[in-house]
Every structure is written in structure tokens, then in C-alpha cells.
């Protein structure tokens, strides 16, 4: 049997599985108009605006910088509701936050639950339309806190918990976000999470804000120092708005590679080939000071 023992084999070098940066090349890139429009029951231009920009070609370039995003300033924009109220918007150069750049502010009209709003944008001879209905949102009863160990950050942080009564007779979708002393996150974090009522009971007690779906994983939370002011927002979403957010969140989860499903452009509600979403929401908010 000793003869069975034979020379061991040597292999030389194997250069396996490596990655390199890849740039997609397209024959032509068609610029598309992008609408980011929000109308709520809250006061303030931060909660009521229409932002018009153009798509950018290089997906690898950072586009959240002022000099990069091409803004459309000369569009004619009108919002109206199903009761005949309407408002024509004007472009505002002033902004508090970078993400408001390119905004047309909605001064008077506010979202009222049950009403339907129509957005009409005319730019360079083309008209883009969107319609959105406002769904109601329950009041936040209470905000609690708990400690949570975040594996990725290797630290324990305090996170807010949400209490509210979920109407069981309606199909509801929610958008959740929070601020700590007015600060809503960093560039590592997209501070929105979405929630489908399918698993919610009538009494929602102490749900974590990211218990639905969010883009940021464990980076969703930041520590809440004692004495800081925490504002938690619960907004109503229509099914199409929920799907739009879900589609964006999906981009963070699924990378479009050989092992994942085909990605897709988030399907918004704007006509005529424009990208983006016109969202009308009811918002409920609760402010607490962390003791």
C-alpha cells in the first residue's frame, strides 16, 4: 500500500476573485428632469416644496454637492387641490440646507387628509403632471428610549422608541425619521425608514424607528446625549410613495451584481418621463428631552 503514497502536487499561483472599478459606458445620455415634491400639513418651507433638478450622468460622482446638481430655475409650477384651491410657485434662491437648493416654495397650500392634490410643471414647452392623495396619520402617543449595542460601530447607543395606535381597518404605510437637536444624520446615513402596517398591532408599543426598512442599516442611529431634544416624525404615505421609497432602499440592499436581482429605476408618479415623486403626507411629530 505504500506505493499509493505519491508525490504531492504543487500548484503555482492562483490569482482568484478580485475586484476593480468599473465605469459603464453609454452611447448617449439623455438628460431627464427630476421632481422632488413634498406637501404636508406642517408649516414651513422645509415640509412644503417642489425641487426641480436634472439627472446626472456619472453614477460614480458625488452629486449632493451644490456645484454638481443642475438646478432648473425657470419652470412654471402650479399646485391645486380637488376643492379648487391652487397656488403658483416661485423659485427661491435662499435656502437653509443644501438639500433645499433648487426649491420652489409652497407658501399657502397645505395638505389636508382626504384631499387630492395635483402638481403641474411646465418647462421648455413640456408639461409634467402628478397627482397625490393625502392619507391621515395617527398621533404619536409617547417616545421612549432604550440602549442598543451596534455591532458595526462597536458601541452602545440610546435610541428612540415609538408608541402609537395603528388603525386596523385601513391599509397604511408610514415614513419615519427623527432629529437630535435639529440634526438629522450624516452622509453615512439616510435618515428615513418606511413601515408597512402588515405586521403592526392596534397598539404599537415601543417600535424602533428602523424596524421597517431603511437604507442605512446599523448606521441609522446616532447616540442621543442626555439633555438633547429629540423630535420624532411619523408621516403617512400612499402605496405608490411607499413603493418609491422602498425602491430606493432596495438599491442599498441589492447591488445589481450576478447574485442579485435586476435593479430598477424607482417608479414615481410624475408623467412624461420625469423622475421623482410628488408626495402629500400628514405628519405627526413628538418632541421629548432625553433625561
Amino acid at each position: 500500500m505504500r506505493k499509493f503514497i505519491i508525490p504531492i502536487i504543487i500548484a503555482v499561483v492562483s490569482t482568484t476573485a478580485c475586484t476593480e472599478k468599473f465605469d459603464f459606458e453609454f452611447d448617449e445620455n439623455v438628460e431627464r428632469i427630476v421632481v422632488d415634491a413634498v406637501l404636508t400639513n406642517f408649516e414651513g418651507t422645509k415640509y412644503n416644496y417642489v425641487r426641480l433638478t436634472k439627472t446626472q450622468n456619472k453614477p460614480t460622482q458625488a452629486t449632493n454637492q451644490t456645484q454638481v446638481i443642475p438646478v432648473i430655475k425657470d419652470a412654471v409650477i402650479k399646485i391645486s387641490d380637488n376643492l379648487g384651491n391652487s397656488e403658483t410657485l416661485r423659485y427661491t434662491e435662499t435656502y437653509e440646507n443644501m438639500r433645499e437648493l433648487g426649491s420652489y416654495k409652497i407658501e399657502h397650500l397645505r395638505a389636508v387628509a382626504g384631499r387630492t392634490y395635483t402638481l403641474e410643471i411646465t418647462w421648455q414647452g413640456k408639461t409634467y403632471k402628478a397627482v397625490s392623495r393625502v392619507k391621515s396619520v395617527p398621533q404619536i402617543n409617547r417616545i421612549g428610549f432604550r440602549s442598543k449595542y451596534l455591532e458595526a460601530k462597536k458601541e452602545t447607543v440610546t435610541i428612540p422608541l415609538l408608541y402609537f395606535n395603528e388603525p386596523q381597518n385601513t391599509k397604511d404605510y408610514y415614513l419615519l425619521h427623527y432629529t437630535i437637536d435639529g440634526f438629522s444624520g450624516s452622509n453615512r446615513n439616510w435618515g428615513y425608514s418606511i413601515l408597512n402596517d402588515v405586521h403592526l398591532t392596534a397598539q404599537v408599543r415601543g417600535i424602533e424607528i428602523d424596524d421597517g426598512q431603511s437604507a442605512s442599516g446599523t448606521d441609522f442611529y446616532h447616540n442621543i446625549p442626555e439633555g438633547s431634544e429629540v423630535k420624532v416624525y411619523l408621516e403617512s404615505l400612499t402605496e405608490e410613495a411607499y413603493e418609491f421609497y422602498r425602491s430606493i432602499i432596495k438599491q442599498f440592499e441589492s447591488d445589481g451584481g450576478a447574485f442579485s436581482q435586476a435593479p430598477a429605476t424607482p417608479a414615481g408618479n410624475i408623467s412624461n418621463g420625469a423622475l421623482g415623486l410628488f408626495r402629500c403626507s400628514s405628519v405627526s411629530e413628538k418632541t421629548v428631552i432625553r433625561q
Partner: protein
Amino acid sequence: MKQKKILFIVIVWFASLFSGYGQEKLAQYSFQNKSIPFIIENIEKVYQCQFTYPSELLSKQKNKNINIKNKSLNEVLKLLFDGTDIKYSKKGSLIILSKKKEKQKFILSGKILEQESGETLIGATIYCQKYGIGTASNQFGFFSIELPEGKNELEISFIGHAQKKQTINLTKNLKLNFVLEQATEKFDEVVVTAQAANANVNNIKMSRTKVQIETIKSMPSFLGEVDVMKSLQMLPGVQSSGDATSNLNVRGGSFDQNLILLDDAPIYNPSHALGFFSVFNADAIKNVEVYKGGQPARYGERLSSVVDIRMKDGNLKKYEGNITLGTIASKLSFEGPIIKDKASFLITGRYSYAGFVADNFADIAYDIGLFRSDLANYKKGNKVNFYDLNLKLNYIIDDNNRLFFSAYSGRDNFYFKLINEKSSMDWGNLTSTLRWNKIINKRLFTNTTLVFSNFDYSYYIKDDIRDFEWSSNLQEVALKSDFDYYHNARNEMKFGLSVNYHRINPGEIAPRSDSSITKYSKLQDNYGIEAAVYISNSQKITDRFRVEYGLRLSSFFRFGEATMNQYASDNYSKVVGVKKYKSNEIHKSYTNLDPRLNMRYSINDRNSIKASYARTSQYLQLLSTSSIGLPTDVWYLADLYTKPQTANIFALGYFKNLRSNIYESSIELYYKNMQNQIDFIDNADLFLNSSIEQEIKSGKGWSYGAEFMIKKSQGKFKGWISYTWAKTQLKINGINKGNPYPTRYDKRNDLSLMLSYDLTKRLVVSSNFTYSTGGALTAPVGTFAFQGISPNYYTDRNGYRLPDYHRLDFSLILKPKEKRKWKGQWAFSIYNAYNRHNAFSIYTKAQDYNVSASDSHMIYMFGIVPSISYKLKF
């Protein structure tokens, strides 16, 4: 007196002279399109003879062209009656005509075996040149051929074996086994036939390839692992889903549309290590046959192709074995008689340590400064292991009965950081087949098979909060009986029936630790039964024209305890209620009648035209979100919402052999349309989803193409070139705005070259080259600003073409000396010789520390990969 005598002779001579003259005027010597009775009348006059025959004998005879001038009567009779069913005999000047008695026919049946091992040979041919009659042995080595009585010289041939010529004197039905000797150095090359010399032209089947295991073994192999599935990707019309993966896309079909059979047991996942290797250990394999279209009626269950793989039976004569030590896997195989010439066994095993090797060699390479830039992103700590075990037992009960048992077990552990750092997978197949061959009589052969197949996988998420195990499995139990009936020299029938039982556990999820937020949950099991009957006949219409026609009737019953959603409309979006089914209740049944047709018209020995049509149906499909297939993809049975897939495959081909059958060439054109093809809606949510029907849409697909192949399988220089032009599209309402779109594996051009050259009798060098258009992908075109981030927007579904794929491989095999008892074989190979970075996957993800911007990266699985393996035969 004498004068009188002389005068008489002179008168007679004159008379005869004159009478001759007179008759010459009356009789004709040359006849154009004249009836036999007319010719006979003239012959009687010329040759002074008389014919006698029954009046009806000549009434149905064809008119003849004949010239009798300067010919003897015997010559004339031969000319006139040869090739007819008329027999003549002479009695003086009387010629008696009668009907020839038909030569009696007898049946020669038996098996064709290999001399050295006693293995039955599949597809070995028996040919009688004199009558142009031939047949081939079936999957169990059995043949039956009808031949005229008397001496028949037969040629028996099989790939890689010395052709045998044997004269058989048939006086009754005869049972006889033929043994063929393996071709070794002692044989002259001319004697060793690749196969029946003009099988390419003469065989009725098109879109079918028999790949010889020896050819597969001589091809350059990736990391020294001879791979059956990858060698099939070199054939026209067959493509791979991704670089270095063993999945097959046949004529625009997805990879779940291939019926992959190992000794009749279906293999649900033919991949090891996510497809970089296939589960088939070449040392255990005897024969591989692929059908891309024109599937015989015997095969059903899948839409696009059949890959029928047969394991070796085990040597009945002597013990033999081999050990292979390779770069990433080592193998052992051992076979021999349990009872000499009566029972035998074969056992093979393979174990791979690919992850360990990859980590260590990456380290070494980095340390010595090789490929540093490439290896900068390499992450260690990978676990990629797998094993295979094949077992075969066979027992010859008597001349007419034989039992086989085959089993396969294989399992994978996969954790490869570059692909996914947070999850690992386990998966494995287990199959077993019990088979009983019986020769019922000289014309009828039957094979009854009981098959069990199990596939299961587990998926572990190693994330801090979702720490869970997801597992799923499926089982199939099948019973089938196949009959081969050799009716006569013109008709060979096949018929049979089968019943398949399916049970699928689509998934259950369980937490792996207390800190996991995951709760245990399970999707309901799915049950189905598929039953089928088939019949087909291969009929020789004329010497040149042969038709094989068949029908397959299959029914599928989805049943079992279940709660199914009820929907308001066919788009399955609004649930209006649920319906509960009991365990023995049928939810839905489907029936399909699939006609099959193959035709061949031989223009001559060297040229033929073939056409085929097959309708196919498939009752279960793989819900795969990935382009290359993951073991974790879910098999899904047709149900209330998802109809079975069906396809119509048409093909037309021209086959030509050149230079005494040394070169074989073919052109095949095909068109395939497919119904009830499914795809996922945008952003489908599949995870533990009990209402999958809401996430998928179904529609139609079509594929067409042209396939070219030139092959040389004899001589020192062997190889083939194949080229395919093809186009595949799907059109599904609700996906890509209802517009047609290409599949991910739609590749317009595909070129494969495989060449090998015997430098000496022991040294073989080979090379292959493949080129194909890149696959299709849904790619990010750009970004748009939305609430503080910049999400991507994309092309249409699969609207972007990946870069072209091309690769060159080499191998050098040093064979052992024939006379040695211990035979060592070295194989050196270089995969991807010019270090092409072929895209395996392109992914786009958010940059670290910046959620607003994303980058795209390409993963290429392999750069240049040299390897060595050593095989010791004993």
C-alpha cells in the same frame, strides 16, 4: 450419298442463313422502356427458346431498358431479372419463371461490451454493409437487429475502440454478445474509429451531441478539474451564465430548463462552489449525451435540453483504480468485480479544499510580489469546500436480467468574503437509482427504474441582529418503465411511462442566537405529481429517408394541505380571500400533449438534411433572482397562479462529411418560442414570501439562431470549431413596460475552438479559446437628487451589454507507458493564458462613508491560473 449429304448441309446452312436473316429482321436487340413480356417475346425469337410462367407474374413488373446484342442467353437472363423478385431456371430450351422466395430474416440480439472491463457500451454501432442495415446499442448496451438468413459480415464499432469485423451465419434467431477491445498504442489508427464513420450525416437525430468522456478529459481544465458541464459549453448553442460557472443556457433557455440526469436521477443543482465546478466526477462517468432540441419522446420534464449522464458500471473482470492529486481537489476511484463476470462495484470520491488553497496562494503570491495590484482587494478567511461520492453496484442475474444500483452524494460549504461577507451557505444533492434491465425477448428490451433525488440548502446570515438560518429542501421520487421494441429492420419503437412525486419545502427560518430578532417561521410545503406516457417509432421510409415520430402525454397535479390566496383578477395584486385545501385535495391539474418529430433525408453518404420539431412542457421552475443561479434559489411547482411552461422548438440542419468522414460539419438553424415564462417585477420581495405570485409575472419568450460546427475527431490533430449567432428575448406584461427585452444570458456571438494534438503517443497538447458577446445587465445610467441623496436610475431591463468575454487555455497531458503496472499521468494546464479580466459580476453600491454616492465594481473570478495534477492508475 456423300454428295446428298453435302447438299443437305448446304441447304440447311443457306436455310439457316436465310432464316437467320429473316428473324434478324423480326427481332430487336435493344429495348428502351419496354415491358418484360415484350422483351421475352424477342428473346424467344433470337435465342430459340421458350419461356413459361404464370400470367400474373409479369403483370406488375416495371418496364426495362436492355441491350442483348452479342450477349449469351445467361447474360441476358441475368440482366433482365436481377433486381426483380423473379427467379428463372432453364430446362433445355425451356425457361421457367417463378416468384423468388423471400430470403428469410432472423433477429440477432445481444449486448456490446468492453473486453477489458465488461462494461456495456452505449451507442456502439453494428452495421451490415451488404444490406445497408445497421443499429446502435441502447443506454444499457442492448441491441437487436433483423438480418437476412445466411452469411452476414458485420462491422461493430465504438469510440476509442478497435473496430471488429465478424461474419455471422444466420440460420435462426441468435443471441450474441460482442466484445470490443480498447484502442491502445498497439492498434493502427485507421482501425480505431471515432464512431460509425458517417454518424454525423446518417444519424436521424440533430441538435444532439454525444460527448466522449475521453474528449472531456483531454480538454484544458480549470485548476486541473475535468468538468463535464464546462466542456458542454464549448458546443454550439450552449452557453454559460457567467465566467467559470458550470450552468448551461441552451438555445436561449434559462438554466432551470435543463433536465440533468445522472443515471436517470435528476440533479437539481449541478454546481459546486457556486458553479465554478460541476458535481460530476469525470472518473465515474461513462457517457454524456446532450439534446438541444428534437428531444426523443422518452424525455420530458424540462423545456430546453436534456443532459443524460451515465455512470460507469464497474469493472467485471479485474480491480483497478486511480488517485488524482490536484491543486484544489483530490480524487480517488476504485472499481472491480464482486463476483467475476457477474457483479461489480465502482466507488469514487472527491474532496476540494479550494478556499484554503485560494487564501494561501493569494498570500504567497502577494508576498513574492506577483499580481499585487490585483490582490490588493483580496479578503482572506474563505471557506470553500466540497465533496462528492459516487457508488455503483451492478449484478448480472442471468443472460436476460441485470440489476444496477447507483448513488451520488455531494455537499458544499461556501463562504467567500468577496461575494458576501455576511452570509454563508451549505448545500448538497443526494440521489439514488435502482434499475432493472430485462430482455423480455429478442425484440423487446425493458428498463425499470426507481429514482430518489434530494436537494437541500441552508443559508446563514451572520449579521448582528438578523443572525438566522434559512433552510429549504426538495425531494423527488420517480418510478419509470421504458421499453425498446425492435419491430423489424424498418421500425424501432420506444414506449414507456413514468410517475414523479415532488415535495418542496420552500423555506423555513430559525434564529441562531438569543440576540437575533428573527422568529421561527416556515412556508407551507408544496406537493405535486407528474405522470407521463410516451410512444415513438423510428421508421425507415426509404433507404434515404428516415422519420422518427412520437407523442408524450403528461399530466401534473398540484395537491396537498395548503392555504391559497384568492385574487380579484389575474394580475394577483388584490387578495380577496383565502381557500384552504386538505392534504389529499387537488388544487389544480394541467395536461400537455407534446408531439416530437425528427426527419433525415440522405442526399448521399456524405450529405444529409435533417429537420426536427419538439414541443416540451415543464411543471416546475426555479425562481432565481440571480443571473448565474444560487443554491438558495427556490424551486416552484406550477399551481393555481403559475401555469406550466411550454415551448415549441423547430430546427433545420445540413450535415456534411468531408475527406472520408475525417471532417464532420453541420449547420443548424433553430427557432424556439416559449410560453408562460416568468420573471420578477421591479424590486420584487422574495424573502420568506408566501405570496410569490404577487412578485412574478408571466409572458412569452422566443429565441432563434444559427449554429455552425466543424469537427475532426480522428488522427493526431483533433478538435472542433463552433460558432453560434443567437437572439433571445422575453415579453412580459408588467415588466420593462411590457416591451420585449433580452435575457441576461442573451449573447449574440459565441465562438469556441477546441484543438488537441498528439505530439507523441504519450504527450498530448491541447488548447481552447472561447469568445462571446457579453451578457446583458440592468445598469445604472446616472443619478438623480432626492431628499438628500442621489439614487441611481437605470437602463431598461437588461439594457446594457457587458464587455465581450474571451479566454484562452492550454493543457499538456503526459500519459503513462502502457506496459507499466502503476500508470502515472501528469496534467499541466493554464487557464486564462493572457490574464483577461472577464466580468463575472458588476455591482454598484454606496460608497463607504457616503450614502449619497455609489460606485460600480467588476468582479472577475480568475486571472491566469496555472495548475498541475497527477493521476496514478493502478
